[in-house]
């Protein structure tokens, strides 16, 4: 179950095959992200280190070059589970439309407590809505 998702979309003038290299190759990842210990490989674990400690780690779940990359994404605080990052690359106007989808952050943090947090959030939303209504009337 994933209740919360971060989605970002960007356009690049470079072709999908070029953008793909920046998402999967060790050295190119190091230019904008944190350098992993090796190029990303389907089915393999990856790890990005900082100050000798693992900062972000996970597993490459699938690679369909140059259109889709799915990887798990973990940090120390994710005690209850894993989040998942999916990269989708589409040819658009001679360049690339890149979409990032990051799912499962709250679940990775909260695990079984998640339905409760959602229920409470909903309660507050209703509370705030009636509060706003009260203020504006």
């Amino acid at each position, binding site marked *: 179950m994933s209740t919360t998702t*971060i989605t970002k979309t960007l356009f690049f003038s470079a072709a999908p095959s070029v953008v793909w290299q920046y998402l999967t190759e060790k050295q190119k990842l190091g230019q904008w992200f944190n350098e992993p210990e090796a190029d990303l490989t389907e089915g393999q674990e990856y790890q990005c280190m900082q100050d000798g400690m693992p900062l972000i780690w996970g597993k490459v779940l699938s690679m369909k070059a140059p259109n889709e990359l799915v990887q798990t994404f973990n940090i120390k605080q994710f005690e209850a589970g894993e989040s998942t990052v999916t990269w989708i690359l589409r040819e658009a106007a001679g360049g690339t439309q890149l979409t990032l989808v990051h799912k499962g952050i709250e679940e990775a943090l909260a695990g079984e407590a998640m339905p409760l*947090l959602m229920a409470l959030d909903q309660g507050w939303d209703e509370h705030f809505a009636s509060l706003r209504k009260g203020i504006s009337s």
Partner: protein
Amino acid sequence: MVPFGTALKEIKMNNDEAIQVAFRALSDSTRRDIIMMLSEQDMTIGDVVKKFEITRAAVKKHLIILEQGNLISVHQQGRERINRLNPVALKTANDWLNHFSRFWDNKLSKLQQVIEQDTKD
């Protein structure tokens, strides 16, 4: 541009301990039930005991853990101690989403710069 390490360190420093203590307090189903009841109304320890088939001592222990997680606060009212939900602590889950949203904005903006620079050369 916020450097990669700084972005994540910021998340860590602001939320790390508070969120872990809060989520640990929420890891028990009885405590989650107590939270749900407190979301509807403030309750004394006696009110909570009536809803569960566990001892007063056990309920008290759960309430202490919830208080340590900053999920509830206890208010003295005359001779009674009233337990009240603290919604601010639970909002930290949403803060995390906001942090990650900003984190990716920074990273993707850097990616755009790097690719533009490299393909221009």
